[in-house]
Structure formats: C-alpha cells, structure tokens
C-alpha cells in the first residue's frame, strides 16, 4: 500500500517547512517534496508605500540576512533614481555585505551543521546539538561564536546596529566610515582569519568520511547561477549574472539583472508557498539551477584573493568540471569566509574608504528598477515599479532559497531514495533527509527553530490520507 512519510517541521533551518516522502506499494520511495508552509506576502504589503521606505521595509523580511535585502532593495532604488553611487559608498556597501556573509556562514556551519559532522548523523537530537558540541568540542564552539560575533560587529560598526540596520539607502549609504571603526575592524581580521583557516584545514581533513552523504546529498547535474565581476572573479555585491552548466561550460555570461525576466522564469507549485524559479531557455523544470556558495565557486574563474584562491583550486579538484554534490555547500562556505575576510581587508585599506561623499541624491528618474546582490545563500533579486508620486505599485522578490527550490526538492528525493528503507523509520535516516535541506541553509523567514526541542513528526499515510502510523520526537 502506498504511504507518505512527513517530516514536519524541518529543524535547524530559518523558517517553517516540512518534507513528505511518498512510498509505493513495495515500500520504496516514489516521490519526495520540500514544502514551505509559511506565507509572508512582502511583495503585496509594500504596495502603496514610498519607494524610499523600501530598503528598511524589505530588511524586515529576515532577521538573519537583513543586510542582503537592504542591499538588493537599495540597489533597486538606485535604479529608480538612475544615479551612480559614489565609489566610497559602493565600497562601504561591499564591506557591509562581506560582514553579513561571514556571520551568516558562521551561523550555518558552526551552529547549525557542525553538530551533524562532529556528533554523528545517527546520533539522537538530544545528543546532536550545539550544547553537546560545547561539551565535546569547545574550541569549535568558541570559534563559531567568535566568527559570528566578528561579522555582526562589522555590521554594527558600519551601520549602527546588528539587526535591521538602515544605513544602506537609495543612492549609497547614509554615513561615512570613521577611522576608529575602520581600524577596529582591521585589527580583528587576523583573529577571524586564523579561525577560518584552521576550520577549513580541519574540514579538509575530515569531510571525506561523509562519502555516502557526498554521493547522495543532492548530487546531480544542474545549472549554476550567480554574479561574477567583469573579469569572471567571485563577486558578492555587484557584477553581472553568469550561468554554468553541469559540465562547466559557461552558457550565459555578463547578463544584466535588469533583464532577469528574459532568463529566469517563476513557476508555482500547489504544495508550497515557495516559488520555483528556473532558467527560461531550458524551460520548466529542466531549467533547474543552484545558487549560493557552491554555485558561486563553480561559476567563478577565481576568487581573486590569494588564500581563497588556494583553497578554491583544491576545492575544484573535487570534480573534473564543476562540484555537483550539495554536501559541498559546507566546504564552499568556509572558502567564502576566507575570501570575504581578504576582500574586506583590501577594501578597508583603500585610500578612499574614509571619504565622506558616500551618497548620491536625486528624485526618481525611472518608473522601474531592479537590484541584485549575492546574499549568503545566493543571488537575491528585488524588482520594483513606482507611480509618478514614487509609490510602489508592484514588487517582485526572488530570494536565494527560491532559486534553490527545484534543487532542494530533487535533493530530498535523491537522499530519500538512498536512505529511506521500507516501513521502518530510523532517526539517522530522517536526519539525513533533513540534512540535505540544511546544506542549502534555506532562509524561509526570520523564524527560529530549535534542535531536539522542536517536534519532528513522521506520519505514515495510506492512499486515502488515513494515518497508518505516527512517530513523534519531542
């Protein structure tokens, strides 16, 4: 008899979601889906608001990556103003974004995912959480806290507060950087770099023990999409769009984000509130692509900073063309932290970084604007239309997690087919299906989920929806 296994909620991600696994009459996995069960509606609630409010309003989309929304929104507003942001304003926005990526990657790697690596995928939740990690691996736990704190302090020093800062504005940033803040950040970079370096070295020695997970955690051909600079280097804040196929071929390059609707389609599935974007030239769902750390390292020709380039070259040796396993998102995050720290130091030593001309002022000069930045989890697009009074008439957001939606679904199915066996539901089996999603570090909202404390409910359902069995973990 066909059955459905439901994992609800998925834990240690940002937001509300569940996974269902459909078994066939033989008890084998037939289908699996990742459902986003929460609805936010930010595109609708901002209609009628002045465009100048958008950066602050959109930053409220999330408590983990408000800076990413702030940046993408400000850049969409730059397009409405049709202004060129002063160079120092651009540089300061970059530093803000780099700090954001460092703190977010540290949260994902150390707090959310390292319990899986260090305490075992088969360990019960009460023994596979950060408190257990604190007891068994205090140095790792301290490093995670220190690195996240570093990134948060960069944001605070630039923008005045860690969560929902309003410093990034249409036309640039509201205030210049002072020498004291610059020097304080520069003084902390060596410590952050030491943490990032030793963590990467440790991870490079240990990740191969997860060969089965590497082989089965969303390890499939897909496109990869993200931003690169004009020379093809790793890019987090500006740049143009590049698309690479699973053989490593660049199939589109230097695409202007203003034209995103020409190459990105947005499908909607009835089982999820999360959109399913796809690469338009290949259609739906063949146009499946991935964004985020793994994609960025796959599409770039180099990182363009020495330490990150060294690590990147070793990373790319994992596969002959591009790295396909989503398990390597974790690895990619560590390399990106190093790249961010190197880029940050370089920018902060720029002679113009303390310049006070950081914002361009103008009235709206266009009725439509698109902004893009690389959020920690991948490319983030904000698209606004305004009326003659500067009020928002229409908005569209494509967040990184949305870009990855098709890939997450396919990854869940792949892992479920490999790890889920018939009628017996084991903890480690479900942990791995969940952990596939965690590779992508999906950010569904600013909601917080807990480890162990949050219930994990597994339901076996008959073909008419009747519950045949239920396993609950409190």
């Amino acid at each position, binding site marked *: 008899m066909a059955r459905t296994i439901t994992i609800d909620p998925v834990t240690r991600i940002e937001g509300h979601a569940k996974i269902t696994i459909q078994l066939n009459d033989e008890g084998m996995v037939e289908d699996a889906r990742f459902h986003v069960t929460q609805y936010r509606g930010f595109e609708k609630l901002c209609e009628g608001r002045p465009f100048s409010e958008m950066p602050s309003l959109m930053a409220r989309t999330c408590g983990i990556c408000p800076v990413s929304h702030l940046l993408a929104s400000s850049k969409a507003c730059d397009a409405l103003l049709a202004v060129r942001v002063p160079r120092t304003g651009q540089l300061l926005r970059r530093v803000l974004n780099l700090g954001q990526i460092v703190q977010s990657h540290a949260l994902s790697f150390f707090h959310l995912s390292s319990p899986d690596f260090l305490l075992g995928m088969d360990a019960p939740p009460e023994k596979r959480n*950060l408190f257990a990690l604190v007891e068994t691996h205090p140095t790792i736990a301290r490093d*995670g*806290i220190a690195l996240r704190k570093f990134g948060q302090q960069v944001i605070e020093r630039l923008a005045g507060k860690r969560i929902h800062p309003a410093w990034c504005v249409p036309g640039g940033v509201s205030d210049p950087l002072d020498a004291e803040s610059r020097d304080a950040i520069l003084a902390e970079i060596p410590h952050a770099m030491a943490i990032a370096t030793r963590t990467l070295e440790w991870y490079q020695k240990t990740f191969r023990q997860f060969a089965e997970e590497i082989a089965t955690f969303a390890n499939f051909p897909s496109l990869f999409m993200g931003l690169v600079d004009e020379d093809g280097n790793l890019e987090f804040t500006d740049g143009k769009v590049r698309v690479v196929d699973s053989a490593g071929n660049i199939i589109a390059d230097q695409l202007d984000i203003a034209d995103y609707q020409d190459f990105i389609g947005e499908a909607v599935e009835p089982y999820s509130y999360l959109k399913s974007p796809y690469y338009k030239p290949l259609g739906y769902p063949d146009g499946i692509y991935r964004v985020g750390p793994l994609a960025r390292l796959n599409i770039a020709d180099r990182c363009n900073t020495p330490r990150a380039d060294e690590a990147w070259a070793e990373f790319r040796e994992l596969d002959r063309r591009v790295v396909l396993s989503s398990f390597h998102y974790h690895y990619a995050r560590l390399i990106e932290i190093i790249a961010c720290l190197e880029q940050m130091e370089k920018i902060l030593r720029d002679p113009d970084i303390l310049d006070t001309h950081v914002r361009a002022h103008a009235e709206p000069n266009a009725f439509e604007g698109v902004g893009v930045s690389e959020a920690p989890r991948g490319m983030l697009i904000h698209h606004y239309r305004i009326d003659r009074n500067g009020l928002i008439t229409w908005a569209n957001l494509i967040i990184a997690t949305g870009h990855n939606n098709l890939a997450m679904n396919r990854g869940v199915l792949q892992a479920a087919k490999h790890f889920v066996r018939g009628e017996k539901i084991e903890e480690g089996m479900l942990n791995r299906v969940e952990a596939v999603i965690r590779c992508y570090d999906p950010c569904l909202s600013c909601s917080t*989920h807990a480890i162990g*404390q949050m219930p994990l409910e597994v339901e076996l359902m008959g073909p008419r929806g009747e519950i045949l069995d239920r396993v609950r973990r409190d």
Partner: protein
Amino acid sequence: MKRILILGFGNPLRGDDGVGWYVATQLFERTGAWRCDVRTLHQLVPELADDLARYEVAVLIDASADQPAGSVRIRELGAEAPRTEEGAFSHHVGPRELLTLAATLYGHTPRTFLCTIGGADFGFTEQLSPSAQAGAQQAIRTLQALLALVAN
C-alpha cells in the same frame, strides 16, 4: 566596584514586548558612577556569552506573556546544568543557556538576575500599555535597589 551589564531584550515594535528595552535604558541612566554597560537587542544570541563572561553582575530584562500584566519578577539565575527549554539554538538562546555557554566556553559567569515584567498588549505599537508602564517603574526602582546592594 563591580562591572555590571544591563541587557534589555524584546521587540519594541510589539508594544509591551519592548518593556525590557525601556527598563534597561532607564535603569542605565540612573546608575550614575557605577561601572555599567547597557545593551538592548531583540533576542539573546550566542555571541553574548563571550560578553557576559567579562562582567561580575548581569541583569537581563524581558517581557513576559505568562505572568499577570504589570507584575514584576526578579530571580537570580544560578549555575545549573545545561537546559534547552528555549531551544538548543539556531540563532537565539535563553537566559540559562547563555549562562551555560559562558561557563562552559569562557569559564566565568557573572552573578545574573533575570527580571520579567508582565505585558498586556503585544500588538503593533511602540507604546507600552499602562500596566506594563507601571510594572516598568516598579522594576526600575527594585533593580536600582538591587544593584546598589550587589555592585560593590
């Protein structure tokens, strides 16, 4: 003179949930020459463990939806076994978990008091309800007296 950290947390855009911020800032202004620092934030985060371990006394101030509106509860948090009632975090922790992190990772916890004030209205407003306001005033007076006792 001991170093004191005053931490007010909650969401000031949600009415009485912001009472921790209000009490923390008001209390800080009345601490005079004491070696006091104040922080206001939406939630307790793991990074605070490092900060907390640098102080001798800490006061954590939060709103409560569970206790009667306007009521004030102050209790000292002792060194206890790790607890995960607020969730073994993704990006936030509870007061006891924060203390556990400070003790385990940094080898020191300050003498810590948790002050909770019952709220009545957690809707979309930046104003405190009259009962939360009354509770806030009582909390400020009591905490001021408490700090006078433990600061030296």
